[in-house]
């Protein structure tokens, strides 16, 4: 699997997207804090966190005895550069070409 595959796979699951949203709201949460309000076992949360970490979307760092989880926005940025920019830019340039053509016809 390429890096892109890992990121798309990680993002394809609603629970994992929810975990990312929770870190977006407040970064650096511990496993216990991430579990709160989720109807899921600790094991389930850990499993999803591992997929997110493998995809590079979450980075965990130890501070003393606690492990804090941080959202790493870089893979989403790279995915955006690689996949989103390319298609939206074409769309925009196609529209501006159409505009030029239509306006030039008059």
């Amino acid at each position, binding site marked *: 699997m390429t*890096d892109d595959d890992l990121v798309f796979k990680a993002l394809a699951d609603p629970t994992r997207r929810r975990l990312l949203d929770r870190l977006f709201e407040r970064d650096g949460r511990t496993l216990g804090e991430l579990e709160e309000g989720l109807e899921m076992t600790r094991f389930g949360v850990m499993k999803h966190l591992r997929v997110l970490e493998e995809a590079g979307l979450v980075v965990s760092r130890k501070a003393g005895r606690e492990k804090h989880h941080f959202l790493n926005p*870089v893979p989403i940025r790279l995915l955006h*550069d690689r996949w989103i920019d390319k298609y939206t830019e074409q769309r925009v340039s196609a529209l501006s070409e159409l505009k030029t053509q239509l306006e030039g016809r008059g």
Partner: protein
Amino acid sequence: MTTTAIQTTQVYRLYIKASPDEIWDAITKPEFTERYFYGARIENTPGGHRSLGPDDDVWGEAEVTEFDPPRKLVHGWRSLYDPELAAEEESRVTWEIEPQDGGLCLLTVVHDQLEGAPKTAASVSGGWMLVLSGLKTLLETGQPLVG
């Protein structure tokens, strides 16, 4: 639209296909930083961190608290390019380079101790992403991402 919470610790991590020495040079020498860091000529030495803008304006000046080539660099951060941000407290930037298999390195940038610099925290978060994807592109292709 969700409101963006101000994060007092920001973590950015990416793989770069380059050697630890190449990454180290790219983050410590001004002739490299000016190609991906908003044109800033940044010099990191055991003596300190200094960032100069295109017109030799001082964009940043701080202490280097850890200088361990080509593995770890820790320096202070003050956004002197903007008076409002410059008035805030100093924060800290840590660069960690970890070699991986296959000629890759894992680069982790942690910008923390931002408790006394909420405006800086909000302002740098998009910037780091652009800087780091620019650094990756420069090292992997030899070409700057922008311009």
